[in-house]
């Protein structure tokens, strides 16, 4: 099998502003566009974990959707273990799964019913889904009594744990974690992080992790890329990136310091001025 888990080469994604498009067309003007991802090149070796850091609206989720076959790029190409996501879409789909920040489920169905639906689509048998799903959810700290209750009765943190189980249940060899710990309490966050570490160790999964949490990226990732306004502005190991910045007041720099120095703003400041794309 190809040793490169994920190969994103010079990918650009532009959206047309629909309302502006209609008005502009009336006046014979060109359509207004929004570039969400611009010339992004990213590579993850098999078994590697790469963190993608950036504020809301920086293009992280768009990039994840492009890799997930949910969006088609305007230019550039993406390969998952040597398979082109557009030409070999079905093959790529069997190799990947995704955990997104929105835990999207059939709200009236229970965690087990949701897992049955999601994993059967990947050809997993019902018996295995129930057994393994239960195992993962218990490992993530979900009580057994919750497994058969409707999702709508569960907290956001609990729903996110079910989303993580859904992502891993199909044994993907490339997993896209799009802010998987956002909104979780500190204990749940640690449980999820420990689970990701264990999975990596046991299943040799290749992981792309987008996060706002600099400490999480520092702890979980082999390499880190910083994305801003759709462009990758820095990449390397956390230590390499920290080495590129001036140490603030003699303290050892953190990834947060790297971000501030590279972009001129803190993540929080960035987020206040932007909406999620």
């Amino acid at each position, binding site marked *: 099998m190809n040793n490169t888990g994920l190969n994103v080469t010079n990918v650009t994604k532009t*959206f*047309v502003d629909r309302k502006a498009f209609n008005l502009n067309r009336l006046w014979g003007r060109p359509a207004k566009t929004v570039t969400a991802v611009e010339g992004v090149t990213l590579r993850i070796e098999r078994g590697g974990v790469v963190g993608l850091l950036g504020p809301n609206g920086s293009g992280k989720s768009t990039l994840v*959707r492009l890799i*997930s*076959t*949910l*969006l*088609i790029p305007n230019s550039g190409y993406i390969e998952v273990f040597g398979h082109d996501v557009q030409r070999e879409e*079905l*093959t790529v*789909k*069997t190799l*990947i*799964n*995704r955990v*997104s920040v*929105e835990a*999207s*489920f*059939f*709200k*009236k*169905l229970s965690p087990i*019913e949701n897992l*049955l*639906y*999601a994993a*059967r*689509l*990947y*050809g997993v*048998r019902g018996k295995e889904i129930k057994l393994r799903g239960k195992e993962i959810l218990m490992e993530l700290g979900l009580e057994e009594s919750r497994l058969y209750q*409707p999702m709508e009765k569960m907290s956001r943190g609990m729903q996110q744990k079910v989303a993580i189980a*859904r992502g891993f249940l199909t044994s993907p060899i490339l997993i896209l974690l799009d802010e998987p710990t956002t909104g979780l309490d500190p204990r749940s966050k640690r449980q999820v992080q420990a689970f990701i570490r264990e999975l990596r160790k046991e299943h040799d999964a290749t992981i792309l992790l987008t996060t706002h949490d600099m400490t999480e990226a520092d702890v979980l990732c082999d390499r880190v890329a910083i994305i801003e306004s759709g462009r990758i502005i820095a990449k390397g190991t956390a230590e390499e990136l920290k080495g590129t910045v001036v140490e603030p007041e003699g303290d050892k720099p953190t990834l947060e310091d790297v971000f501030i120095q590279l972009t001129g703003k803190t993540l929080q400041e960035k987020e206040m001025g932007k909406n999620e794309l």
Partner: protein
Amino acid sequence: MSYKGRAILRDAIYEARASWAFVERNINLVKRYWGWEVVWLVYSIVNSLAVTFIGAGMEKISGQAVDSDYLILYLLVGTLVWSYLSVVFNSISEMISWERWEGTIEYTFMAPVRRFTHMIGTTMFAVFYGILRTLVILGAIVLFFNISLSNANLAGAIVTLLVGSISFIGFGVLASILPLLFPERGSQMTHIVQALLLLVSGVYYPVETLPGWMQSVAVFSPATYVLEGMRQALLSGESIPGLLPNLWPPLVIGVVCIPVGLIIFSRAEKYVKYSGRLKRSG
């Protein structure tokens, strides 16, 4: 078995398992939304009864002698067939709207499932659910009216309904493209299509009652043939060869609409992935 044969069998089992995912999910949804199911079932029974009572009361309405039993059965066939065809059409045409509303559409579209398999699963449930629901409505109506099916050709009626299902599956696949392309108003558009079919297909009256231009539109509605065929089978006991003029048009409509619908759906899916409309929830 040869290597190729084993591979085909493996793929078939994989696709069957994926199809079952949609059936099982929909059964679970029906169980979880049981309150709504009861409401819709009661509404459908009441609606069917109300229509059928028109037949029972026609003698008093017109002040003339009419064959009430015939009229009751005529209207009953209309209301039951329309109820069944509506369920099949809605289940398929709203599969996209439903997933958008729940927020699961990205996960379904990310899964390694062919759209054909997706449709097969949705269709299997729609037909099974539609038949079950219609039987419950029929069971309730039988309690109110003395319905005699002694002249009926039941086998002919079943064949007509199954062939009609194929055409409505085709129409459903075509209609499901609307919610995919138009997240905000696509679902409403499918209801307009359904309403037009109800108007022109002769659900409660002969198509000949309609103005000429509406009769021309009725020719293209598969429901016109299904209703006519069902009435001939149940009211006059028409044999299957005699039903053929009402069997081949819906069959042709289905055989054409299903592959054409799948091709257009696949193109529309590419477009929404390019334009970023898949994620939008309206």
